[in-house]
């Protein structure tokens, strides 16, 4: 796949309908290389749907999605090849329960990238060391805490050497005391220059790590900009209301 200049992710006039439910109502969003874009907003605002349209887990009803120069909505686009370059981390981790931690990280390297068993295992071990779980490589997902599972899921996505990482409420299913370890891994990724699109309720993370914050409500982008502006000094009334509700507790 050729690396192109210009935005890594480019979304234009994106609409998504589920039957009569018009979830996304014309989204335009570009993400440049190395940018960390945090998408915030009330539940039901379409944040997750937007993220899932980027790697076509949801098929857009209308509009364009380009990732690394590939038109994802083109029926001739090789979606499998494109998805291999887009890492995704889910709220519910979605580790493969019938495989050890090491195999979870190796399976797609082997089957999709056709890496050898030795190379996949070496890469997996390096990533496990990076997320601080070297001693867990033989464990099964059910034996791990939620935070550990999510860190394995991040390692699994990173093993594909993605050009962009999507985080879909990666800490929302975690016990409060486990959120920090996952956010720390995400922050270190951002520090290394990974391009990231992050749907989150963690306002602290958005304030400190994001290069840009996007506030969504009712299927549209209400406002966006640097976190100091959107979170620190929002222009829109809807943004202010949302932030005051989130920050009350």
């Amino acid at each position: 796949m050729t690396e192109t200049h210009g935005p890594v992710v480019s979304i234009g006039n994106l609409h998504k309908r589920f039957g009569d439910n018009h979830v996304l109502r014309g989204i335009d969003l570009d993400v440049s290389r190395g940018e960390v874009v945090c998408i915030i907003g009330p539940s039901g605002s379409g944040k997750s749907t937007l993220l899932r349209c980027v790697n076509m887990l949801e098929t857009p009803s209308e509009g364009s999605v380009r990732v690394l120069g590939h038109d994802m909505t083109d029926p001739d686009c090789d979606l499998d090849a494109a998805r291999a370059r887009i890492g995704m981390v889910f709220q519910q981790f979605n580790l493969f329960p019938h495989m050890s931690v090491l195999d979870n990280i190796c399976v797609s390297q082997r089957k999709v990238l056709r890496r050898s068993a030795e190379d996949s295992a070496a890469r997996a071990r390096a990533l496990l060391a990076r997320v601080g779980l070297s001693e867990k490589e033989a464990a099964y997902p059910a034996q791990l805490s939620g935070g550990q599972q999510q860190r394995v899921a991040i390692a699994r996505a990173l093993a594909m050497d993605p050009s962009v990482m999507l985080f879909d409420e990666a800490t929302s299913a975690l016990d409060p005391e486990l959120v920090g370890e996952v956010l720390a891994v995400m922050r270190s990724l951002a520090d290394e220059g990974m391009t990231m699109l992050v749907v989150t309720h963690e306002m602290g993370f958005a304030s400190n790590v994001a290069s840009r914050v996007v506030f969504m409500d009712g299927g549209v982008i209400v406002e966006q900009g640097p976190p100091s502006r959107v979170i620190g000094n929002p222009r829109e009334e809807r943004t202010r209301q949302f932030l005051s509700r989130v920050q009350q507790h």
Partner: protein
Amino acid sequence: MALSRRQRARALRYCVYGVTIGVAVLVAIVVDWGRLGGALFRWELIVEQFPGIITTAARNTLIFTVFGFAGGLTLGLAFALMRLSTVRPYRWFASVYIEIFRGIPLLVTLLLLGFGIPIATGWQWPNTFMKGVVPLSLVAGAYMAETIRAGIEAVPRGQMEAARSLGMSYPRAMATIIIPQALRIIVPPLTNELVLLLKDTSLISVLGVTAGSEDLARFGKDAVNKAANATPLVAAGLVYLVMTIPLTQLVAWMERRAKAQTR
């Protein structure tokens, strides 16, 4: 007079014991044991069934079962995947197939395919084995398709999403992520279907059978005709039990183990 809960439970228990003992005594008095033993349990007739009942009859029943199960599993997997396909004609075809072969009794399917096809087309089945195994597989496939589909649907949707988001194609994700997990779920019900299939092979005995290809039921029936005594069928029944009880116990063990794991 009001009874306490414990008193009522005890009274009920004594009632059940009393009725059971009463029925047993009645049976023991009424039944003509000599005649029953003579018709069903003639030891020398049981001995006479060996070794044919094992080397021919049980062996053929097992062959019908194994090939019927293998054929059914292959068809079942194919139809389950078609039922889950996004291509509508596949779904329709699979649904129609499943409804037809689950709705018609196996006996009728056996007769239709075994006798009907040769009459209608002039084509002859090459041997009894094919004549029995093909309809058996077709019907088993319809039942297993539903079991396998239920197992695949029981795997959380996020598993497929995770696999696809890692760049796996749909068939690749099915083969490496979804079906291995589905198999764990469906092994107990599939083993139950194996037991049903093993017993259903007895229906093949209605087809014309050449010497040496008799299954257990046919073997027993032929021996009954020859001896003018029902003992050989009792022997056949016992051989069925020897094969089915270990399987049902295996299912019970697997279900206990699965329950313990989910706790």
